[in-house]
């Protein structure tokens, strides 16, 4: 089984790097697809990226070759290069250079590892960490918006907020007003209201109220006019004010003065 040319010898012993790279690739890919936690998915992405870098670096390996930095006899600033300048100066040419390195011969090239994949992989590692930082910022933002980073709970909350949003009277008015039905953007702060799974309602509402306070102040600052402007920002923030205040009012009746104006309409919708 272990003689040359058999499949096991070819695959396992001579090309073990490539087998392990395929296994790591599969681990990373399966983690990105099937794990529920978003942070685990990001760990899978990181494993995937390093497996690809392992593959490229494995290509660059040569037997009995050293690292891609010039050895002392080929060093451009070494004694051999200095001697070459003295030779050329003695023969009559004047050069500004202090060293005169020479091009390597092909048999000397074999002593060095291939530098090209190393260069490409340096860029890949740095871009990978930049992507990881950005993805973690998005995870934090999701945690602030929905309160969880588990995929199944997130899907439940998104469906619930979509259903709730499509029932609101504002959405119905918007659908009637628009000619094309491209109503897929959902309000940002509406989902925090549905968070009664296992958490007490009190801290959420206070955070909820500060959030709605923030959005209203932002909308007031940017544009004083509200309703007929029908472009995306304004009705969304005002509808988000509606959505955010909708279910908290039965729980804590006297929170904001602005919510009270929407109270009769809400009770009618629910």
């Amino acid at each position, binding site marked *: 089984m272990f003689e040359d040319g058999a499949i096991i010898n070819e695959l396992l012993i001579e090309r073990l*790097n490539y087998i392990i790279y395929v296994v790591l690739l599969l681990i990373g890919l399966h983690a990105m697809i099937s794990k529920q936690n978003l*942070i685990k998915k990001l760990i899978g992405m990181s494993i995937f990226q390093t497996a690809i870098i392992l593959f490229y*670096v494995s290509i*660059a390996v040569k037997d009995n070759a050293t*690292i891609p930095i010039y050895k002392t006899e080929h060093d451009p600033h070494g004694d051999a290069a200095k001697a070459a300048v003295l030779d050329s100066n003695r023969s009559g040419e004047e050069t500004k250079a202090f060293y005169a390195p020479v091009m390597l011969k092909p048999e000397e090239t074999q002593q060095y590892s291939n530098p090209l994949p190393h260069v490409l*992989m340096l860029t890949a590692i*740095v871009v990978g960490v930049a992507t990881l930082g950005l993805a973690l910022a998005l995870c934090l933002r999701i945690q602030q918006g929905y309160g969880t*980073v588990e995929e199944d709970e997130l899907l439940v909350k998104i469906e619930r907020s979509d259903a709730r949003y499509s029932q609101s009277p504002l959405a119905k008015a918007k659908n009637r007003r628009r000619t094309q039905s491209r109503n897929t953007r959902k309000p940002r702060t509406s989902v925090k209201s549905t968070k009664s799974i296992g958490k007490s309602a009190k801290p959420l509402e206070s955070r909820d109220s500060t959030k709605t306070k923030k959005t209203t102040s932002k909308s007031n600052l940017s544009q004083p006019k509200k309703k007929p402007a029908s472009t995306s920002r304004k009705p969304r923030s005002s509808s988000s004010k509606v959505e955010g205040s909708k279910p908290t009012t039965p729980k804590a009746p006297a929170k904001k003065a602005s919510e009270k104006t929407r109270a009769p309409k809400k009770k009618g919708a629910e």
Partner: protein
Amino acid sequence: MGLELFNTFILLLLVVTALAALRVRDLITAAAVLGVYSFLMCLLWAEMGAVDVAFTEATVGAGISTVVLVATIFNLKRKSND
């Protein structure tokens, strides 16, 4: 021969570490095991002659990536459901 044995050993340990990083429930432990995975990769690449890549992976992968992951998990729930 010794070098090949070392290579094989590190490669198998890589697979074990990758699986472990995905199986633990505690997220901070997962970040720490990912740091171990990055260091093993760095060792492997240094042995293969890619010293620049190994240096970069040691600082960026095992340094910054682990710290940034832990800093984020600090703001999330520490236990994952799967």
